[in-house]
């Protein structure tokens, strides 16, 4: 594999890792607060549809982004009400929301546009177009670093850069702020948090809300940056891969970024079987490449690569006076 090909693969990796990363961080907030969320997929889908629809109607990608975040937060709120207020089973609530999103998105898009559950193709300012970072053209001819900056780092939509900036932000919030400390505590030992006079319900709703925002950005990115519009089931299981990445990263933000980049890299490799064949000298079946993220996650869960310990209160509704 020559350097230019490597850069192409890395470029694809960044694009494909972004929705995973946003969804993974979304899951991280929720699960760190003790609320399991397998509804990431559904939230992304709802956001993708709303973003695509509103961007098509208003002609503004930013309006689409806001609509996407709104729709995703609505789903997050539903999950919160089911799982926190009514202490329902978090997994079942998540699955239900996934089904709801799957059907509802197509229904609404069909009612709005009569294009078979798709939103109309977007163009111009209705999409988040690629931006060239400052100095990318000038540095292009600098050996090694220049092409890396020009090909891989520069030339993505603004949401990609936002996603990667949210990683240090998340680390800072979780490990350097009072809110973060409480958030982590509520996922480990909500009774202690409650004893300290802090609202468990409030903290958990805040975490679920942040999950909604991040899934909203992820969905909007798919519909208005990666693609030019929403299509049925367009998230294609990325919410589940993000969950796998979250486990792989052991619920830590920076590790989550590396996990998503790794999974994105596998997805990028699966697009280039010729490159894989040239490197390993054996013809590797594409489905095997597709399955790698899941296989790695199973390895982690089986305890081969360190130990993945979820937040202790994860999945348990909090009841006072238990």
């Amino acid at each position, binding site marked *: 594999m020559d350097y230019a090909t490597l850069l192409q693969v890395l470029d694809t990796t960044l694009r*494909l890792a972004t929705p995973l990363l946003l969804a993974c961080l979304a899951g991280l907030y929720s699960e760190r607060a003790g609320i399991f969320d397998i509804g990431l997929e559904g939230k992304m889908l709802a956001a993708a549809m709303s973003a695509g629809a509103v961007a098509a109607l208003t002609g503004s990608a930013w309006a689409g982004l806001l609509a996407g975040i709104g729709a995703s937060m609505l789903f997050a709120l539903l999950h919160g009400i089911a799982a926190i207020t009514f202490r329902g089973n978090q997994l079942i609530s998540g699955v239900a929301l996934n089904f709801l999103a799957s059907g509802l998105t197509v229904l609404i898009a069909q009612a709005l546009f009569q294009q*078979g559950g798709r939103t109309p193709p977007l163009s111009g300012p209705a999409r988040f177009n690629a931006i060239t970072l400052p100095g990318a053209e000038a540095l292009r001819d600098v050996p090694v670093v220049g092409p890396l900056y020009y090909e891989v780092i520069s030339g993505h939509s603004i949401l990609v850069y936002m996603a990667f900036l949210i990683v240090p932000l998340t680390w800072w919030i979780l490990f350097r702020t009072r809110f973060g400390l409480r958030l982590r505590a509520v996922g480990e030992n909500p009774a202690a948090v409650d004893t300290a006079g802090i609202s468990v319900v409030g903290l958990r709703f805040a975490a679920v809300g942040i999950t909604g925002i991040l899934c909203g950005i992820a969905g909007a990115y*798919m519909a208005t940056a990666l693609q030019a519009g929403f299509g049925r089931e367009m998230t294609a299981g990325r919410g589940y891969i993000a969950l796998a990445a979250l486990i792989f990263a052991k619920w830590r933000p920076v590790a989550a970024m590396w996990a998503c980049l790794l999974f994105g890299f596998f997805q990028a490799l699966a*697009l280039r079987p010729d490159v894989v064949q040239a490197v390993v000298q054996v013809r590797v079946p594409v489905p095997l490449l597709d399955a790698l993220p899941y296989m790695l996650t199973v390895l982690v869960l089986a305890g081969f690569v360190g130990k993945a310990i979820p937040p202790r209160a994860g999945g348990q509704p909090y009841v006072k006076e238990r």
Partner: protein
Amino acid sequence: MTMMKHLLGAAGALALTAGAAAAEPALIYDLGGKFDKSFNEAAFNGAERWAKETGGTYKEIEMQNEAQREQALRRLAEAGSNPIVTTGFGMSDPIATVSKDFPDTKFVTIDGWVDPAEHPNVLTIGFAEHEGSYLVGMMAALASKTGTVSFVGGMDIPLIRNFACGFAQGAVAVNPDIKFISNMTGTTPAAWNDPVKGSELAKAQKSQGSDVIFAAAGGTGLGVLQAAADEGILSIGVDSNQNHLHPGSVLTSMLKRVDVAVYNSMMQGAELDTTTQALNLASDGVGYAMDENNAELVTAEMQATVDAAAEQIKSGALVVHDYRTDDTCPAATF
């Protein structure tokens, strides 16, 4: 009790005659969805044409998952729909199961295969995708400036490989040194609906030098066409005429006249002739699309070259290899 039996029998006979009188046809769309701007939408267009011309009505169901197939068939058959037209290879096995229980109902499987000897009430309609793909493959090779053309398939099944194989043969016929790249989106039905992956595959193929991409991938193909338009290269649509999706970027579309197949089946109604049909170039079952959206992309010479080959195929002077006959392709490996 006897009275009851008589009554029931009369009611049953009434229901049967009512069913026969109002035997309206039914159409079942495959997982790609009714408005996929491609395969299933072509079926819908054929049914609409039938409804318009005859003033009849038809029932329709869109498949959401594999498990619904048999259930949908049974429900329509019990409701007296006749014939029941289905799209997609996935309906073959469910039809083979259900058709025995409803010997008086005619079933149509488009793109599938059900043995006519064992199931006399099932019509199998197949298409010579390799012939249509051959023509657009020639056109791709004629339009390519880089000497590299590529193919994005949906789910990796012999039918889709047949598209790829015909396309590669056509490209090689024009330019023996042409480089051909082929990618499949996946191995599950989800591969028909992943436009993001379609886009990324198109971009990956462009980075390998391809400047004409043929997509035979249902909803995923829309992502391929979008990426080709974004990247400023050419694409080729499939099944329906997709030239209008990105005018000036879609070189042509390989047409598969699913609409004609559906229309003809519904026209015959309950008297449907179940002799297996293979719709090819000679019977206008496949072809390529020319309209105002791609008029500037296709030169007169290109069209003349392709049309000459089409005549040869029709007359039998030129035989395009069908991948499905022996699972090999002379022009490409998978």
